[in-house]
């Protein structure tokens, strides 16, 4: 350590040119380097930085556009989801209405069908009753007529064989009495 310090101290003491010299800086060289640096800066600023900045700007713009597009897409997606939800809700509502209407219609149809069937069955029963009544009346008439025919025939046969003057007198007497 001591060596190092002494070394620097000896260097300072041996060099010329003031402080720069003491520091080991060559002024000429420093100026030249400064000029070169400035030229480099000017060249970079004129030819390189604009290109880089433009590329960066473009990139940033693209990124912003992408972000905007993503946001827009997200918004669209949200909107679409809302629309879908609304559509689904509407569709469910419509489906429910359709089902309800279908149920109502089915119920109405069943009721109408029941009513029609009932009316038809009642009509069939009424017709059957009417027909039976007609048949009964016709049968009664036929029976009545047959009975009359039979009674007339039997009476004629019986009277033909059993009529005597005595009976005839009674018949005549009854007829005269009835006529009076």
């Amino acid at each position, binding site marked *: 350590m001591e060596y190092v310090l002494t070394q620097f101290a000896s260097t300072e003491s041996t060099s010329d040119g003031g402080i720069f010299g003491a520091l080991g800086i060559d002024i000429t060289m420093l100026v030249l380097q400064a000029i070169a640096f400035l030229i480099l800066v000017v060249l970079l600023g004129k030819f390189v930085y604009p290109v880089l900045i433009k590329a960066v700007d473009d990139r940033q713009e693209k990124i912003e556009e992408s972000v905007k597009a993503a946001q827009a897409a997200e918004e669209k997606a949200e909107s679409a989801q809302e629309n879908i939800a609304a559509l689904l809700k509407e569709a469910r509502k419509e489906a429910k209405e359709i089902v309800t209407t279908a149920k109502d219609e089915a119920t109405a149809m069943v009721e109408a069908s029941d009513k029609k069937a009932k009316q038809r069955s009642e009509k069939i029963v009424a017709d059957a009753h009417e027909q039976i009544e007609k048949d009964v009346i016709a049968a009664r008439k036929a029976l009545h007529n047959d009975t009359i025919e039979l009674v007339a025939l039997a009476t004629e046969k019986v009277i033909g064989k059993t*009529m005597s003057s005595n009976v005839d007198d009674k018949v005549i007497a009854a*007829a005269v009495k009835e006529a009076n």
Partner: protein
Amino acid sequence: MATRLSRRKIAAFYADELLAGRDIRAQLAAYLVETRRTREYELLARDIEAALADRGVLVADIASSATLSSESRKAVEMYLLDATNAKQIYMRESTDSSLLGGVKAAIPGRELDATLRHKLNQLKASKI
């Protein structure tokens, strides 16, 4: 040419003749032949019977299934006299076995059918 007399006038004339006790058969027959009205014989006979009925003399056609007994005949006679207010009655009796029983009396303008045949016919007619 003689005036054509109405059947009613002829009947009235011959009814009076009959009531007077005259036999009109030959005279009536001659008249009908002369006036060419023989076809009206039956009608004229009926008209004479009607004219006699108007004068209280009843001519009745009595039909029965067998010959009437005296009781039945009397009963029928009494009934007809009562019913027509006639004073005298002549009954033309006939038998028809198809009548079965009872009696049928036909007088001018009326008929009493109390035969069993008639009753049976009425029964048959009541068929529905």
